[in-house]
């Protein structure tokens, strides 16, 4: 077996220029996949963490009825014993903190103009303790214990459309749990830029206490749970689910991935692009290698004839060609993995930035993650491509007519 392997290995280097070209092609395919895959991985990981840290949290607790709720009277299906639920959750392992929230809707007016808003009521201290950022670009964040006026943060787009600035007053109108329309005057203390233009055109944030006064309810719509690491999400969710059953209300625990619709869409898109690139590389390697290996077989016709004449079984010839192709694929994969990681490291060191994607207002740093699973997957892809490419030449070689092969010039 060792000699057989040696023969295959030496055969690869008979035509060094051709082998080099094949290695560059295979290695280029692998490196390309790694760079694209590494960039996608960076993007999706960044999107995941920013989605979680921008307020989604790792887990969220709702009432079971929340998802069938009335969009107007949002607290009808809210959590009433939320302090007790929050205390229960806090005692769990890997839990960094909890933040109660009210998600509500209404109209905002400056006396001259009105607009629809998507409101979020938060406990500023709880949000800060979880590291959630408000993305305040002008002014300051909400004060957890404001002295006078009800404070509000509004999106940059909403501020522009309402033509308001820091210190200006606005009136919020929303439906209470009783179905009555209630209003509250707020003072703008900060302008927020989340980076998503559609969000910033509607978003408004006040404190939890202010929202409860506006909505005439002590309930919250959801409790956000922050963990020490995203990888612990499944474990903590499994631990919490049975503990939440003791609550008087039927509660539902959702993981971040269940709520991150945009993340899932982006991830699916990147996976699709990566798969498409993989298919292209697979066929590129397959087609070009078939030609190279057929040329190699043609050049070695007499030698194969000699081996067959000496009684070499046909499957040995098939195995030899497939082994050569597999070794070539393996070397190409090594070249590609080394090259791809080197180029990736250079890109990371260069500090390049990509222009903002559609719907975003800030640029994204261009970085490539080194993902072992992608290295293994891309390597296997080209090795299998080459092994498959060798089947036709290998079978042809094993079926050569010996007498004709021996007289081949």
């Amino acid at each position, binding site marked *: 077996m060792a*000699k*057989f392997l*040696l*023969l295959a290995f*030496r*055969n690869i280097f*008979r035509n060094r220029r051709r082998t080099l070209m094949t290695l560059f092609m295979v290695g280029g395919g692998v490196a390309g996949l790694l760079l694209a895959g590494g960039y996608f991985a960076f993007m999706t990981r960044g999107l995941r963490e920013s989605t979680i840290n921008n307020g989604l949290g790792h887990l969220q607790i709702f009432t079971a009825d929340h998802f069938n709720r009335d969009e107007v009277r949002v607290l009808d299906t809210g959590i009433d014993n939320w302090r007790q639920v929050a205390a229960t959750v806090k005692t769990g392992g890997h839990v960094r903190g909890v933040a109660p929230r009210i998600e509500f809707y209404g109209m905002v007016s400056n006396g001259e103009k009105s607009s629809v808003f998507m409101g979020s009521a938060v406990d500023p201290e709880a949000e800060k303790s979880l590291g959630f950022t408000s993305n305040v670009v002008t002014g300051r964040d909400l004060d957890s214990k404001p002295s006078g006026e009800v404070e509000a943060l509004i999106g940059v787009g909403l501020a522009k459309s309402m033509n308001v600035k820091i210190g200006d007053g606005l009136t919020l109108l929303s439906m209470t749990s009783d179905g009555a329309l209630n209003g509250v005057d707020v003072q703008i203390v900060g302008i927020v830029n989340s980076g998503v233009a559609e969000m910033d055109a509607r978003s408004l944030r006040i404190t939890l206490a202010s929202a409860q006064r506006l909505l005439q309810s002590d309930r919250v719509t959801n409790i956000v749970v922050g963990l020490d690491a995203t990888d612990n999400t499944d474990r903590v969710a499994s631990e919490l689910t049975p503990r939440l059953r003791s609550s008087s209300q039927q509660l539902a625990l959702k993981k971040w991935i269940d709520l991150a619709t945009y993340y899932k869409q982006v991830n699916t898109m990147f996976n699709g692009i990566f798969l498409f690139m993989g298919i292209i590389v697979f066929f590129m390697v397959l087609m070009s290698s078939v030609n190279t290996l057929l040329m190699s077989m043609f050049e070695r016709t*007499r*030698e194969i*004839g*000699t*081996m*067959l*004449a*000496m*009684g*070499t*079984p*046909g499957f*040995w010839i098939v195995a030899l060609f497939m082994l050569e192709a597999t070794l070539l694929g393996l070397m190409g994969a090594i070249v590609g993995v080394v090259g791809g990681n080197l180029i990736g490291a250079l890109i990371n060191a260069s500090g390049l930035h990509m222009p903002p994607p559609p719907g975003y207002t800030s640029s994204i740093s261009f970085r490539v993650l080194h993902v072992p699973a992608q290295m293994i997957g891309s390597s296997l892809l080209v090795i299998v491509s080459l092994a498959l490419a060798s089947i036709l030449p290998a079978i042809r070689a094993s079926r050569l007519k*010996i*007498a004709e092969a*021996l007289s081949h010039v």
Partner: protein
Amino acid sequence: MEEIVNVEGVSRRFSLDDGSPHHPAHSFVSALSDASLRVTAGEFLAISGPSGSGKTTLLNLIGCIDQPTSGRILVDGVDTSKLKPGSMATLRREKIGFVFQTFNLIPVFTAAENVEYPLLIQGVGSRERRSRVADALESVGLSARAQQRPDLLSGGERQRVAVARAIVHRPSLVLADEPTANLDTHNATQLIDLMHGLNRRLGLTFIFSTHDARLLEHTERIVRLCDGQVASDNSNEGGRRG
């Protein structure tokens, strides 16, 4: 003496029906026609004749790398016309050694590795292989060149490596197709002497083809072919004997 090869009324025709308008349908060229030959174990036999007389075809048929159109060939008592390709390969692997006109060594293997190859495909253990390769190379006087690749060997040396490769697995029969055609007279004579020596010392049966009249002086039995037929089968009284 034991009969090692028995060629009985063998013919080999090649089809010329390649679709060309110059070749009418079902046209053939006859390379060998009703040839018969018996070879006993330990013989040193030359097949001679002009180019196109059927020497290579006859050796290919005896060597089981081609099939006769009619007639039958027995090698070491086995009727090769009834064998399937796999069994033919086994017969070649175990009982026949080949020496080719153009040496046909594996260029990426050293001389020793080339000689080792027939043992490798027979599944002989590595220790046994090493010992037999050393013996074979010593018997052709190339022990010192064992680790050289073919491109660093002279034509004569390459053909001696090919002879070592042909005998290393101790076959019943060694077939050599024009083994001296690419050698100068000195190397050609040396090679025939070498093969003859191995024939005498090891009792190996050698059948080789040549159209070089000078080499025939060294052989004991000469089968002459002409137009695909055995024209004569003579013992050469002047040939070397042990």
